[in-house]
């Protein structure tokens, strides 16, 4: 990921800003330009998602990609937020063996990566068991 792309996505990554369709009330994350339900009659507006959700599925990463070496093993989960959208997030602050499908989580602000020791630090959301 390059710095410009990270910078463009800051509202989504920091604040879970997605979109909500004024026509059908569907909430979408990441944001889209067209409502998949209403198509042309859809009316999408920025919408801050509630920070609570549930773990739908997860895996434990033992062989991490570059930049995550110090954190393995860690749980990577699909979280369904209260308002419907699903997203992939690391589960932080826990023993990955404790994580269960159906666990309640809250989204928290953490470091998600960096461009090496002298590069930009990427912040964004992770999930924490509640």
């Amino acid at each position, binding site marked *: 990921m390059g710095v410009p792309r990270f910078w463009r996505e*800051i509202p989504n990554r920091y604040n879970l800003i997605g979109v909500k369709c004024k026509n059908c009330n569907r909430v979408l994350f990441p944001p889209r330009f067209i409502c998949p339900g209403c198509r042309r009659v859809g009316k999408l507006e920025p919408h801050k998602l509630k920070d609570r959700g549930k773990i739908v599925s997860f895996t434990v990463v033992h062989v991490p990609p570059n930049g995550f070496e*110090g*954190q393995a093993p860690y749980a990577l989960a699909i979280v369904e937020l209260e308002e419907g959208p699903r997203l992939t997030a690391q589960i932080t602050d826990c023993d990955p063996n404790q994580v269960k499908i159906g666990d309640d989580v809250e989204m*928290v602000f953490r*470091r998600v990566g960096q461009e090496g020791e002298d590069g930009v630090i990427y912040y964004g959301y992770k999930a924490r068991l509640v």
Partner: protein
Amino acid sequence: MDVGIIGYGVYIPRYRLKVEEVARVWGDDAERVKRGLLLEEKSVPGPDEDTATIAVEAACNAVKRGGVDPKEIGAIYVGSESHPYAVKPTATIVAEAIEATPNLTAADYEFACKAGTAGIQTCMGMVEARMMKYGMAIGADTAQGAPGDPLEYTAAAGGGALIIGKNGAGALATIEGTCSYTTDTPDFWRREMQPYPRHGGRFTGKPAYFKHVTSAASALLRQLQLTSRDFAYAVFHQPNGKFPLQVAKELGFSSEQVLPGLLVVKIGNTYSGSTMIGLAAVLDQAKPGERILMVSYGSGAGSDAFSVMVQDAIETKRDMAPKVLDYVNRGINIDYSTYARLRRLLVR
């Protein structure tokens, strides 16, 4: 002054390192260290935490308690001695993460452990001068002591945030006054590009901590014509458990006034977070009409003293966000090797 605290919030990382673990590695007598420092364990940040993430969670909690629209926050100051970037303000990251951008001023402050309270004073002045409706002051740190240094027992991580605004319906406490005491005292320092601080050993006590804390506190009490008996609580900077209790005694305060805000025993010295977390712990339990003395200390050296009077709004606001003890009590103990990995003393 006609300013008060509109909201407050804290964050303390989850991992804990006990004195026994550090003592085991370096061959120290754990019981002696615990007695000497009046400290049992310290908080340790996770691998994905830094001063910015700690500041953000504390700030979010302050916004929840404050019940304010973040767009009305006109200034954010983040005080720390462990900003993640040397150049690139932590305050910009916090401002974005609480959606206070773009119409605000923001800056990072540095003054060892008192950079957060320096931010409170700036916000007080700006609110009083009607430059803005609300200002946010944050003190947050992920402090490091060199391996084997006595600081390793205490250097911890955590943060506190305050939203400052005009007194009135929204204020959960009023700030009656503030006084500072500052000198050039080389008791503790860290040079550019150096990973760990150095300190003057015993020199950090009498001419540094005690001189500055008592001078700032006494000046404030004189200015407001108050004595220790007018306060229900007192919060002093907490480099260890011993100093705040000792300085309280020198100033005529009892340990009963100090203990509710004395968190260092369970979380260590959170540096810029220390006095702000202590104040928050007191606000978590204080009743309207009770008065709190808060005195920070930053090496180098200086102290900021504040007199805070709790108001009725505390009763409705305090349960709007997690309390200090919620964070203190969810600790996970780790051993020294895990600590060494988390703090990157060991790197693969």
